[in-house]
């Protein structure tokens, strides 16, 4: 389906990946004090390619226990998780001292990893609480663009309630290379872990509670062997999608009107819908367009992310066109599938397998295309595409596209079923 140069998404980029504008920060004396007190605890994390001995990616991290545990983002060290035989992870302290670290545990859903350094730390940061009053001053530390350890002042703006994975909204600028660094309060307690930015001082932190949970896991569970990482990630992803898909399927869905159809709207608070319609004199048809999506996605590797759900509606009415001609235009809007930017490499996913048929949806006929592809490393997860077109009206039509990334088979089918059954027609169309 053509999206008609209309992109309502809030583009979020991982800060290890996307350069953002560096804006000048006013450094207060407080920042100066915090930096002096805590720069010993913050480190740079480097992923070293064993073949060249050079770093392939960098991020930040911080020590948070006297035993030398270092926290960072999963996306900073993902290459070393997926191909431990090709990469190793090093840390570099503020004074230039470096050492190798061992990967202890990961949480792909919340983008966290815990590493263990062999040397005893010169200092460590205590873990705090992420429930603060909006407007609280926070200080993010890290090494942006490999330019040297820095501290940035910003404002805590609460947890994003309308999100599958509640992140802290941090009004300050995070830049590439700061991923995995700590965001601390005045007392030097860690409130969150730098993770991503949408640019223009809109940045996100992982709440520190997820790090505490992961740390508990490290302390209570035996360490994982290298080859078990894949199964472990698979287990985390499967559990996570069971969780939110379960919620999705159990809830009562809000509907909205598009043309003469009632369709699923913001079915959970985590979905945001945007709309647009047009009725131009020179066009041969009118249209109304709505798209809805979640903003969260889970980073798995530089070419693979998952977890997003997206759906859109395109209602078209002919301005007195011959049906053959109208259907030709209608068909053109049906022919372009959602661009699957989350995985474009054959190492990660299989080809889509599709089937199609005419399906009776609330007493009207729709042509339904139903496609799925699986993840090669996590075979229980699928990306699905459900594309539907109303085909029994001469002069109007509804196109629907539903995309869910990284869901289990049963959940995918149940979701598609519920979605199709939620589509109903207004009485004017049923005459």
């Amino acid at each position, binding site marked *: 389906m053509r999206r008609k140069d209309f992109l309502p998404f809030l583009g979020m980029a991982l800060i290890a990946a996307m350069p953002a504008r560096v804006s000048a920060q006013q450094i207060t004396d407080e920042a100066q004090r915090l930096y002096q007190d805590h720069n010993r605890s913050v480190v740079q994390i480097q992923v070293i390619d064993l073949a060249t001995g050079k770093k392939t990616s960098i991020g930040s991290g911080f020590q948070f226990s006297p035993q030398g545990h270092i926290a960072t983002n999963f996306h900073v060290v993902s290459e070393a998780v997926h191909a431990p035989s090709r990469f190793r992870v090093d840390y570099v302290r503020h004074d230039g001292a470096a050492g190798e670290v061992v990967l202890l545990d990961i949480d792909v859903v919340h983008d966290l990893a815990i590493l263990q350094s062999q040397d005893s730390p010169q200092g460590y940061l205590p873990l705090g609480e992420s429930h603060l009053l909006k407007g609280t001053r926070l200080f993010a530390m890290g090494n942006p663009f490999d330019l040297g350890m820095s501290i940035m002042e910003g404002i805590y703006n609460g947890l994003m309630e309308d999100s599958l994975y509640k992140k802290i909204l941090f009004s300050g600028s995070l830049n590439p290379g700061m991923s995995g660094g700590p965001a601390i309060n005045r007392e030097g307690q860690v409130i969150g872990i730098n993770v991503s930015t949408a640019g223009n001082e809109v940045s996100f932190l992982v709440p520190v509670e997820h790090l505490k949970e992961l740390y508990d896991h490290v302390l209570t569970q035996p360490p994982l062997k290298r080859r078990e990482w*894949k199964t472990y990630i698979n287990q985390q992803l499967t559990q996570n999608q069971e969780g939110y898909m379960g919620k999705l399927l159990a809830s009562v869905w809000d509907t909205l009107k598009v043309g003469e159809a009632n369709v699923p709207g913001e079915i959970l608070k985590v979905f945001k819908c945007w709309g647009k319609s047009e009725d131009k004199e020179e066009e041969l048809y009118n249209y109304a367009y709505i798209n809805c999506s979640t903003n969260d996605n889970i980073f798995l590797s530089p070419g693979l992310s998952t977890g997003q759900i997206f759906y859109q509606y395109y209602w078209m009415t002919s301005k007195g066109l011959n049906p053959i001609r109208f259907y030709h235009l209608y068909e053109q809007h049906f022919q372009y599938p959602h661009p699957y930017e989350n995985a474009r490499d054959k190492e990660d996913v299989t080809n889509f*397998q599709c089937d199609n*048929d005419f399906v009776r949806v609330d007493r009207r006929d729709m042509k339904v295309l139903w496609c799925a*592809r699986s993840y090669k490393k996590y075979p229980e997860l699928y990306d699905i595409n459900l594309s539907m077109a109303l*085909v029994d009206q001469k002069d109007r039509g509804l196109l629907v596209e539903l995309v869910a990334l990284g869901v289990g*088979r049963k959940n995918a089918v149940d979701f*598609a079923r519920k979605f199709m059954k939620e589509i109903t027609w207004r009485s004017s169309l049923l005459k």
Partner: protein
Amino acid sequence: MAQLVIEIIHPLRFIKEYRTFDAPVVCVGRGYANDLILSDPHVSAQHLLVSAKEDGWLVKDISGENGMYVRKSAKVMDEVHAFSGDEIIVGRTRLRLLSPAHPVASTKLLASPHGFLKRISYPVNVWSILILAFMVFTFHVHLRSSENLSFLKLASGALGFLFAALVWASVWAFVGRMIKHSAQFVAQLSLSVLFLALLLPLATLSEYIGYFVNSMMTETGSAVLFCGALFTVFLIGNLTVATHVSLRNRVVVCATITSVIIAIMTLLYYTFKDEFNPNPVYYATLKPPFMKIFSSQSVDQFLTGTGKIFDSAHIRRTPKADGDSKSQE
């Protein structure tokens, strides 16, 4: 009978030559004193004597070396009474004895366009075909345009098709000029234009067939079948107008050309088809509801019946992936 015609069929059979003789006795052999000199090394210097009789000829073998065969009896003979049309074999050369009065087969007429192919070049038909095709082309362009085009723009779209027909007709007119010394351009043009004017509706028909049975395979299959058959028929027409090839050969040649084109296109398709596509490739044809054939399924029937997409979305693990997991151990 005074006169004798000898048809010489050389060992390789391809070359025939005729010699006429007035003398009552004709000597045949490899020697240069003979009336008919044969260059076949298996023929003797003086091999045969052919003397005229009342109702034929008496053929005598005078060599005593390789002998003489008579075609109809396949026996070595010293002497034979031959009639007009009989074949004598000496060495590896065949000789057919003919009297000047020997009947000949009726004349094979040159294949020339008749019936439909003749009528197609009548001015009134040519103009009708051109107008009909122009209407088909403009309508085709009109149905597929995403804005309201002026008549001039529609017509210029149709001109593209007419130009293609013009090029095709010119090629065949050239072939006709070379082979038959007659270009027949008007007939070729009518044929080509008519071909394109029929091709577009047939291609559309296959889209409808595919849509109603819900299968991209059927759409492609019927399009190949229809267009292939139409192309073969019209190619036969082009050949008939442009060449003297017999009907049987025309059919064989045209069917072969069509099959080869289809085979090459299939081969190219599979050669250049992407092994991996990050986006779904689905059958998105939509047609107006005026001809609904099959009844629709319910949502549950559909989702149960299409479970196989999840099974086939798994592919066998490649050896490379296995190698990866080993190296991680």
